[in-house]
């Protein structure tokens, strides 16, 4: 393989992992914009997506086309239950207690997954075969195409939902100003619940489409969650294209870092970027600053 083919290969793999980070990041951004909560348990819904699909496929013996939606639905219900049982009962909802409770929730979900499914890694079969396609000398798996397609679909769906449906508009209103939203008759608590449902569904979807490529296990949620957060930070916590672009930037940097520098430090790249952006431009790369309310 010559250098240009190698570079093309890195770009392709960077794009596909980046799309996953972007999807996970969208989950963070959706909850953050309507509740100002950073949901540390977001990564666990990604794990749940993958693990539940494997479970429904191999234990319950559902066909793949049915196992996937059932897995997404179950993960979404878990997200809803998480909001009702852990977030809503919180009386003193300070940022500190919210951080701690979502971390607690994520540990609990991960532990339960380990309890039910053990510590083994599982593979989900690719959606449409494993025959690699060749593209200008670089190889690409059909699963990569699935990832690109689902990502585009989610971005479009999100845009339509947030701009053209009444619930989506109501959620954007909550993101701008919760009190004003409740004054015009929007049920803020319900919108919070919706945002948890939506982001766990998107997270689960990301976990499912990546599972055939990278395998899945009870603890994949930690890293995917953190990288997704990193993507959301690059995109300035916007629930739109910014976060997906952030994810793709991160995916490309990682892919080139692993290829040309060192694969051992691959994971460190994301966190160095995260720290740099938090310190230098905490409002994200594509946003203008806002003043802080006291």
């Amino acid at each position, binding site marked *: 393989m010559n250098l240009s083919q190698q570079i093309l290969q890195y770009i392709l793999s960077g794009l596909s992992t980046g799309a996953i980070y972007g999807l996970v990041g969208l989950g963070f951004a959706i909850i953050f914009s309507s509740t100002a*909560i*950073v949901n*540390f348990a977001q990564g666990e819904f990604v794990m749940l997506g993958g693990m539940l699909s494997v479970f429904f496929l191999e234990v319950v013996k559902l066909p793949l086309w049915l196992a996937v939606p059932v897995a997404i639905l179950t993960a979404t219900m878990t997200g809803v239950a998480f909001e009702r049982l*852990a977030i809503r*009962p*919180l*009386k*003193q909802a300070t*940022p*500190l*207690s*919210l*951080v*701690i*409770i979502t*971390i*607690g*929730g*994520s*540990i*609990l*979900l*991960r*532990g*339960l997954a*380990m*309890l039910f499914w053990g*510590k083994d890694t599982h593979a989900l079969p690719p959606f449409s075969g494993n025959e690699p396609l060749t593209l200008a000398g670089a190889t690409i798996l059909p699963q990569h195409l699935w990832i690109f397609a689902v990502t585009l679909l989610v971005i479009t769906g999100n845009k339509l939902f947030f701009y053209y449906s009444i619930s989506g508009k109501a959620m954007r209103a909550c993101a701008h100003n919760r009190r004003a939203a409740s004054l015009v008759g929007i049920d803020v608590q319900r919108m919070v619940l919706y945002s948890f449902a939506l982001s766990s569904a998107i997270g689960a979807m990301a976990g499912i489409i990546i599972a055939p490529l990278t395998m899945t296990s009870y603890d994949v949620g*930690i890293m995917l969650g*953190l990288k997704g*957060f*990193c993507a959301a*930070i690059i995109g300035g916590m916007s629930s739109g294209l910014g976060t997906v672009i952030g994810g793709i930037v991160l995916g490309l940097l990682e892919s080139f870092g692993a290829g040309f520098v*060192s694969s*051992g*430090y691959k*994971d*460190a790249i*994301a*966190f*160095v970027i*995260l*720290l740099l952006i*938090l*310190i230098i431009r*905490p409002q994200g790369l594509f946003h203008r600053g806002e003043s802080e309310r*006291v």
Partner: protein
Amino acid sequence: MKREVVKFIIFAALVMLAPLPLKQSYLLNVLVFVGINTLLAVALNLLLGFAGQISLGHAAFFGMGAYLSGILTANFGLNPWLIIVLAAVTVGGLAFVLGFPILKLKGHYLAMATLGFGIIFYIVFNETIGLTGGPSGLPGIPNLAIGSLTFDNDLKNYYLIWGVTLLTILLCVNLAHSRIGRALRAIHDSEVAARVMGVNVRLLKVQIFALSAAISAVAGSLYAHTMTFISPTSFGFNFSVELVTMVIIGGLGSIYGSFLGAALLTLLPELLRAFRDYDIIAYGALLVFMTIFMPGGLVRGIPDLMLFLWSRLTGKRGGNAQTG
């Protein structure tokens, strides 16, 4: 203040007498680790409980202390006592420098930044194989010694570690009741209000971050010399979360609460052997449960609970919802 002195003397006396009935039992070994974890929890409590600044990367400071001591004594044969001081100063200094940009962040962002920082160091511990031995660990760290007295069994280590821990507790109790302690609590409640009252919020936060990191590094050094073997898994994200859990369960801002939290979280997995891998579920459940039902931690939660039960038992004393 007088009450604090009495409290400390009673606590210190109990700690000093605890090994007597235990002799060289297994429990004594566990109590050594309770000591190290108490030291860490008290250090984190300075930051989390008093100043209200979260850190999800404290295991990194603990690890840096352990590796500095481990590498410099096992591979280069330097004086361990000197290295402990050196490690504390180095790690404290590093935290001081890093603290300025990091502690500018608030809430969730601060949590993520410290988390990212902790993971970067975890990766470094794993990848610099030439120095740290990588994932397979660093063996052959010598025990500490004063002249011919080598701290090579649980009893000696117990007194060494608890000696340091008690001194640190004394320091923190003093700090909490000083002008600095009051300023920190002011920052906890409102940074803007604290600044208006003339507190140099930024510098004070960074200073307490550095102090907390330095104490954690000392705990790391002591851990390395007690265990004589260290590997990166002891210094990962899970341990950072465990430390936060200890502080929360004990009670934010309560120094003896940190001891309760550390003791509970160190003893629990030992007592529930069957739990082994699944103790992580208990942590998660404890964190969620405590945050919802006992936001003040055990230190405030238990008396509140007793009072509540008492008022239930005696009827209308508490004047709660039942009496209308």
